[in-house]
């Protein structure tokens, strides 16, 4: 084989059913036509960037400035980092400076340089499960090992399970709230529980960092406020992107925010610079850096997502599915009517032309994920299909 054994194994393990479903999906789309297939499988938002973002882009490119497409420092433009630091300072009441902000190639890029800079071979990262499967790859890319800690029934953190998962090798806990795939937003209470636990470990001489994947941080509904983790705990890295809030996923732009309370944080900045360079990112795309600094307070229309969540949640309830009502992101994670959710998901696809992702893709069998970042019309049209399939399974 010409490719690496490692990659071959990864592809074989992960892509088996994904690929099969993907290919079946394409076949179904061809057979019935795109508009008769209800594809809830992708977290690719159908929204456009806010109008002001588009306007600023046009202005920036119609008045090109000399040097605007050149390399800059590996951590990004200083004025952009400054703008973000001011915003985060206001939000969190913590004294961020431009040096605490590191511009990255999206969240995925940010997590990779962070793990590369933090993890020595065999170091462990605890991840609450169900979880975004890519986390495993990001951690293992750099010699780390992922340790899963199951969440509670409502998908909130189970502090006892996290405590049990901690070993001498634990270097970090990776949180993703609002969560993909469950849509759960961790409560202040569960965050405080986690912080209490990690502070105990810290007093015993083990520093465990919290890494927050904040990719969905602006997609929070019903006026809920995300707990201010930077105020609760010292050792925090927050990784975010503008894929969702500014609807720029293809442009690969995000940043890492380093808590000013991390001792010797400058060392980490130097480490991140090396990782950014050597992993081949070099710097976050120049043009979009210039744009996003100004739009820290903006967001796509959250109300639209909230409405879609409500409508879809109602449909699932009406059909008789068991499902925790999500507080954020654009995912629902209902229970499958049968333990083998892969079988259910394939039936749903074949008989109702509704495409979703089986829970095993997120480390939790018996559930399935619906991504509702789709047109409202598709949600409404899918109603009958969800109701029919649930009935059919009730008879079994």
């Amino acid at each position, binding site marked *: 084989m010409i490719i690496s054994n490692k990659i071959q194994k990864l592809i074989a393990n992960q892509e088996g059913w994904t690929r099969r479903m993907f290919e079946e999906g394409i076949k179904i789309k061809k057979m019935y036509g795109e508009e008769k297939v209800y594809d809830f499988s992708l977290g690719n938002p159908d929204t456009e960037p806010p109008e002001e973002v588009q306007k600023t882009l046009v202005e920036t490119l119609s008045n090109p400035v*000399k040097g605007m*497409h050149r390399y800059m420092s590996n951590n990004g433009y200083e004025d952009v980092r400054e703008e973000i630091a001011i915003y985060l300072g206001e939000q969190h009441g913590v004294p961020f400076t431009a040096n605490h902000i590191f511009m990255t190639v999206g969240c995925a890029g940010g997590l990779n340089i962070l793990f590369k800079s933090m993890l*020595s071979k065999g170091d462990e990262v605890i991840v609450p499960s169900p979880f975004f499967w890519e986390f495993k790859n*990001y951690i293992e890319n750099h010699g780390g090992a992922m340790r899963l800690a199951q969440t509670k029934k409502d998908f909130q953190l189970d502090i006892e399970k996290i405590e049990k998962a901690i070993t001498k090798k634990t270097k970090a806990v990776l949180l993703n709230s609002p969560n993909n795939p469950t849509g759960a937003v961790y409560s202040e209470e569960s965050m405080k529980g986690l912080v209490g636990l990690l502070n105990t470990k810290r007093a015993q001489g083990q520093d465990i960092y919290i890494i927050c994947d904040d990719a969905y941080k602006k997609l929070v509904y019903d006026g809920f406020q995300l707990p201010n983790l930077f105020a609760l705990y010292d050792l925090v890295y927050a990784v975010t992107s503008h894929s969702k809030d500014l609807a720029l996923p*293809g442009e690969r732009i995000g940043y890492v925010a380093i808590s000013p309370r991390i001792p*010797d944080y400058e*060392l980490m900045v130097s480490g991140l610079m090396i990782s950014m360079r050597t992993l081949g990112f070099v710097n976050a795309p120049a*043009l979009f850096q210039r744009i996003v600094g100004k739009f820290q307070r903006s967001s796509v229309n959250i109300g639209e997502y909230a409405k879609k969540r409500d409508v879809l949640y109602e449909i699932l309830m009406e059909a008789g599915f068991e499902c925790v009502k999500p507080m954020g992101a654009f995912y629902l994670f209902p229970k499958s009517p049968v333990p083998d959710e892969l079988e259910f998901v394939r039936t749903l696809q074949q008989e109702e032309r509704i495409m979703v992702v089986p829970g095993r893709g997120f480390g939790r069998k018996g559930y399935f994920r619906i991504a509702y970042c789709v047109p409202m019309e598709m949600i409404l049209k899918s109603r009958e299909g969800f109701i029919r399939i649930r009935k059919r399974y009730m008879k079994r």
Partner: protein
Amino acid sequence: MGISKSISKSMKSSSWIRAMFEEGEKLKKQYGPENILDFTLGNPITEPPREFKEELAKIIASDTKGMHRYMTNSGYEFVRQEIADYCKEKTKLPFSKDNIIMTVGAAGGLNVVFKALLDPGNEVIVPNPYFVEFMFYIGNHGGVMKLVDTKNDFHLDIGKIEKAINKKTKAVLINSPNNPTGVVYNEEELKELASVLRKKRENGQRIFLIADEAYKKLIYNGTVLPDVFNIYEDTIVVTCHSKDLGLAGERIGYIAASPAIQNINPLMDAMIFSNRILGFINAPALMQRIVGKFQNTSIDIMEYQVRRDAIYDILVESGFEVIKPLGAFYIFPKSPMPDDIQFVRELQKHHILGVPGIGFGRSGYFRLAYCVEMDVIERSRKYFNEFAK
């Protein structure tokens, strides 16, 4: 300690670079940046071609729906088709869009290639002197870099490469036009290299030729870059538009894998997968849309050629021993004293910043990056001349 062992090792081993950088910054503060002649950075100064800027403004003004969304991890199909057409025309080989993967620059592309190819302990042969980042790109994915010295004229020493090959050799990585030497490998030496690799192939060992062609359009005096695709079958070319279109900060490039590679599908799949899990996901969307149309375009290379001529003249007139580079924007003269770090420090005293050859694996030399304003080159004449005395 909050940082990993390997990163802290990298930090220590590159501490002299930092020290020199800081000395340089100090000098700039002390004398004013305009009085320091900085030849250390390979940051291209040219602006993208006018037509490129116009096209960019036009595309963004069109406000096409969905233009900032995710696309498939390998990049937009139509862009890959445009690039495949260009490769096809250039090489007369049957390139299709499936031979192309859009990447976050050449650095991103090389990481993707190595992640897909290397298992722990696999070796990659790199001609020395070399771009030091190669060591990291290979090491990141468990590979081991094996340096092989080039000849006195910085051309490939095929005998040494052949000797360096063992059972663990997975690839040879070349960079032509070369950073730091500016050398362009000729067709003959590449053919010799190909025949060595083919011999190994007949014995059941497949060795890939990976060509970093980041500087492929910066080539002077009408020199033609040999077409590696027509020289060796198992060839992967990685390139970017940092230099030819002046887009270094936008991070856009691509991988082109030869249509002659047998059983290519698993390789392409593995690279696309690596592009995803390394966190690149896809090359920046907006820039993808544009670069496909500018495959035949380049910034004005005469801008660089006159700079090369000027710096070369100055060095020769000051008595330096130096090979006239045919491409890229680097020149790699011999240091007049054996300790190149000490020599570069001496240069700093004369307000000139360069990089010691040890930073590229070759002591006793130093690198000047001449992608600077012409005036900086002219002003360096006086100081280099002083050295002659």
